C-alpha cells in the first residue's frame, strides 16, 4: 500500500536545481534511509514533501494518508531565546493538528507516557531553553512522536545525541516501525545505522542514484563508494 509517491520532482533554489527529476515512493511499514553527500538535496526533498518548500515541477501524491498523520523531527529549529515554554507544553504541541480546540486528557496522558519512554519525565516542567542541545533534540523527538500516526520524517536526528542514546533511539524507531506499523523516512549520514536498520535506501545526488531494497543497495557501486569513506 503506497502512502506517498513523488513523480519527476524538481525543486529549484534560486534557479539552480537542488532536486532534479526525482521519483520514489513510501509504502506502508517502510523504513527508508535517505543517503547522500552534503548539498545533495536530502533535506530539500524532505521539506518539499512536508510542504515547507515549493516544488518547481513534478507531483507529490498522498494516498491513504492525511497531512495530520505525519510526524516530523526537524534538523534544527531556530530557537527563540526568550520563548517561555516548558517541556510538557512543547511535547503536547505535537498534537496541534489533531486536536479540536483543546487538548484532551487522553492526549496529555500520552505525552506523559512518551516522556517516560524517553526518560524525560523528570524534566517535564523545566524550561525548554535551559536544556542542553541533546535534551532539546529528545524533546523535539517526543513532540514528533505525538504527531506521528502513519509516517515519521526525521532529518539527521542523531546529530546532537550521545552514543548511548543514539542506540536507544534506533531501537525505539525500529519498535515504532515494527509494532506500530509506522513508516519511517530518515535523512542521515550514518551508513552503518542504515545497514543495521533500513529496509530501503534512497541514495541521491540531486537525482536518484539508487532506490530499492537494502540488500540490493549493498551490492551496488554507490554503496561501495560510501562504505569505503
Amino acid at each position, binding site marked *: 500500500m503506497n502512502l506517498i509517491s513523488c513523480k519527476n520532482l524538481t525543486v529549484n533554489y534560486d534557479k539552480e536545481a537542488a532536486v532534479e527529476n526525482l521519483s520514489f515512493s513510501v509504502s506502508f511499514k517502510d523504513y527508508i534511509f535517505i543517503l547522500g553527500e552534503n548539498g545533495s538535496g536530502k533535506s530539500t526533498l524532505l521539506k518539499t514533501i512536508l510542504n515547507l518548500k515549493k516544488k518547481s515541477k513534478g507531483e507529490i501524491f498522498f494516498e491513504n494518508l492525511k497531512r495530520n498523520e*505525519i510526524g516530523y523531527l526537524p534538523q534544527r*529549529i531556530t530557537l527563540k531565546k526568550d*520563548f517561555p*515554554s516548558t517541556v510538557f507544553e512543547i511535547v503536547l504541541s505535537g498534537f496541534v493538528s489533531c486536536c479540536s480546540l483543546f*487538548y484532551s486528557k487522553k492526549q496529555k496522558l500520552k505525552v506523559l507516557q512518551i516522556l517516560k519512554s524517553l526518560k524525560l519525565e523528570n524534566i517535564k*516542567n523545566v524550561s525548554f531553553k535551559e536544556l542542553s542541545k541533546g535534551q532539546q533534540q529528545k524533546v523535539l523527538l517526543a513532540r514528533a512522536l505525538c*504527531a506521528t500516526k502513519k509516517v515519521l520524517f526525521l532529518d539527521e536526528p542523531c546529530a546532537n545525541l550521545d552514543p548511548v542514546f543514539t542506540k536507544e533511539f534506533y531501537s525505539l524507531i525500529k519498535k515504532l516501525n515494527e509494532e506500530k506499523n509506522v513508516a519511517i523516512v530518515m535523512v542521515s549520514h550514518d551508513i552503518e545505522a542504515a545497514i543495521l536498520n533500513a529496509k530501503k535506501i534512497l541514495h541521491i545526488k540531486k537525482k536518484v542514484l539508487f532506490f530499492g531494497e537494502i540488500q540490493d543497495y549493498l551490492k551496488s557501486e554507490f554503496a561501495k563508494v560510501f562504505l569505503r569513506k
Partner: protein
Amino acid sequence: MFNEILNVFKYPFLQRAFIAGLFICVCVAILGVSLVVKRFSMIGDGLSHVGFSAFSIACVLNCAPFFVSIPIVVLAAVFLLLLSENSKIKADSAIALISNSCLAIGVVLISITNGINKDVLNYMFGSILALNNLDLILAVTFSFVAIIVFIFSYNKIFSITFDEDFTKAVGVRVKLSKIVMAILTALIIVVGMKFVGALLISSLIVFPVISVSMIFKSFKSVVIFSAIDSAICFVLGFFSSFIFSIPTGAMIVIFNLVVFVICYFVSLFKKLKITLG
C-alpha cells in the same frame, strides 16, 4: 484619596476611559506574548505610524479617522506579518521601512492641509479622556473578539510561535492563523493608539511579557500573568494620573517600568538562591 477615586466614576467620560483602557491593556498584553517572541515587538510602533498616516489621509479627505485607519492598518499588519515568511528583508527592518515612510507621508499631508493641530497631538500621545461612545464600543468589541479568538486558537498560536515549520508540516493552516493574528493585532493597535498614543503603544505590548517571563516558565502562565500585570498597571496608572494630574498613558508606562524592575530583581534573587544552594 479614596473619595477622589470614587469621584472618578461619577463622570461618564471617565467610565468610558476606564472600561476601554482595561480591555485594551489586557488584550494587547495577551497578543504581545507571541509578538515579542517572534521579534515583532516594534509592530505596535510601526502600525501606529501607519495609523498616523491613515489619520492624516482622513483629515485631508475630511472623513472619520477610524474608517480610514482600520482598513489601512489591517492591510499593513497582514503585509508585515506575512512578509517575514519569504522575503530577504527581515521583520525589524521591514517594520522600520514601512512605519517611517508612513510617518513621513503623514507629516507631509498634515503640513499641506492645516498644520499640526490638537487632534494630531492626541494621536501622538493619546487622549484617553476624549474617547467617545464609538471608541468605547470599538475597543470593547475588538478586545472581546481578540480574546475569544486567542483562547480558541491558543494551541495553534503556541505551536506556530515555537516552530512554524513543524506546525505547517503536520498540516495546520499556518498562513490563515497568521493572517487572523495580524488582523487582530492591527485592530487592537488602532483602538489602543487613540488611548495611549502612537508613541507609547509598543510599551504595552512589550513590558508585561518581558517582566512576567523573567519569573514564570510556561507559556500559559506567561500569557495569564501578562494579562493580570497589564490590568494592574493600567488601574494604578489610571487613578494615579488623576491624583497627580499627569497624562494617563505615560503613568501606565511608568507603572509597567516599575513592575519590570521588580521582576528583574526577583529573578536575580531567585538565581542567587539557586547558586548559593
